[in-house]
C-alpha cells in the first residue's frame, strides 16, 4: 500500500485532476484517507452549488454582431454638431445677436431660400424654356464679364 496522499492530492482526486489508480485505490482502502476524502467532498458542496445552468439570452449573438458591424456616423449627430457650431459662431459674433438668430434668423434665412426658389420657378413658367435658356446664357455672359473685369482690376493693382 502506498503512503497516505496529502490533502491537496485528495482534492485533486475529487476534482478529477488526479487519476493515478494507486492513489484512488488507496483512498478507498485506507480508513483514515477514506474519511478525509468523504469530509472533503461534503465541505466542497457549497462551492459545487455555485455552478448553474443559466444560459445567455438567445439574442446575445445578434446584439454582439450589431455592435461589431461598423456604425455609420449618425445623421442626427452631424446635424447637432453643425447646429452647435452655428450657434457658437453667432454667439461669438454678438451675444445679443444669438437670441435674434434663434428666434428669427433661422426661419428668415430658410424662408429667403424658399422664396427665391419659388420665384425662380414662377419666372421660368412665365418665360418658358427659351426664356430660361436665354436667361441662363445672360447670367453666364454676365459672370464672364465680371470675372474679366476682376482680372483686369487685379492686373491693374498688381502693376
Amino acid at each position, binding site marked *: 500500500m502506498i503512503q497516505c496522499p496529502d*490533502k*491537496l492530492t485528495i*482534492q*485533486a482526486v475529487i*476534482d478529477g*485532476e488526479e487519476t493515478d489508480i494507486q492513489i484512488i485505490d488507496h483512498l478507498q482502502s485506507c480508513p483514515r484517507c477514506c474519511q478525509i476524502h468523504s469530509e472533503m467532498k461534503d*465541505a*466542497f*458542496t*457549497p*462551492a*459545487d*452549488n*455555485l*455552478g*448553474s*445552468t*443559466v*444560459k*445567455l*439570452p438567445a439574442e*446575445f*449573438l445578434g*446584439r*454582439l*454582431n450589431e*455592435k*461589431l458591424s461598423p456604425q455609420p456616423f449618425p445623421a442626427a449627430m452631424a446635424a447637432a454638431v453643425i447646429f452647435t457650431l452655428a450657434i457658437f459662431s453667432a454667439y461669438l459674433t454678438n451675444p445679443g445677436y444669438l437670441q435674434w438668430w434663434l428666434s428669427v434668423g433661422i426661419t428668415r434665412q430658410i424662408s429667403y431660400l424658399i422664396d427665391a426658389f419659388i420665384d425662380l420657378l414662377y419666372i421660368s413658367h412665365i418665360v418658358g424654356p427659351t426664356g430660361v435658356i436665354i436667361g441662363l446664357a445672360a447670367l453666364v455672359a454676365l459672370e464672364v464679364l465680371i470675372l474679366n473685369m476682376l482680372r483686369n482690376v487685379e492686373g491693374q493693382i498688381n502693376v
Partner: protein
Amino acid sequence: MQDLLQDMVKTYGDKIYRLALRYTGDRGQAEDLTQETFLRAYKNLNRFDQDKDAGPWLFKIATNLCRNWLRDNRETPVESLEGFSQMTASSPENIYFKKESEKELALALDSLPQKYREVILLKHVGEMSYEEICKTLDLQMSLVKNRLYRGRFLLRDLLEKGNV
C-alpha cells in the same frame, strides 16, 4: 475573424455569462460584461494565438472586467440573484428555501477574500481545470491548489457559521 469570435461565444459564452452573473447578481449587468468581454477579445483577436485554447484568454478578460465592476460597485446586489433561482421544485416552500439558501451562498461568496473567490468561481462556474486557472490568473499550480482548498473550506465555514 467574426466566425472565430462566434465559435468562442458558442463555446464559452454561457460560462462567462454565469461567471459575470455570480459577480454582479444581475442578468443585465452580466450580459453587458459578457458582451464587453467578447468585444475586447474581438479587438485583440490578432494578438491571440489561434492554436491555443481561447478559454484562459477569454476568462482573463472577463475576470478583469468583473474585478473592475466590483471596484466600481462595492455594494453586492445579492437581493436580485435572479439568474440562480431556476427552480425545479414546484412548492412555494421549496422555492422560498432555495431562494434563501442561494442568498446565503451569495453573501458567503461575497465575504470571501478576492483571491479565493476568483479561483473558486473559475473552477465551479467557469468549469476550468487547474492548468487553465493557472493560465487565466497567471498563478503557480501550487497556489491555485492551495487557494482552491482553503477557499472551499472558508466558504463552507462562512455558511455554517452564518458569519456573512
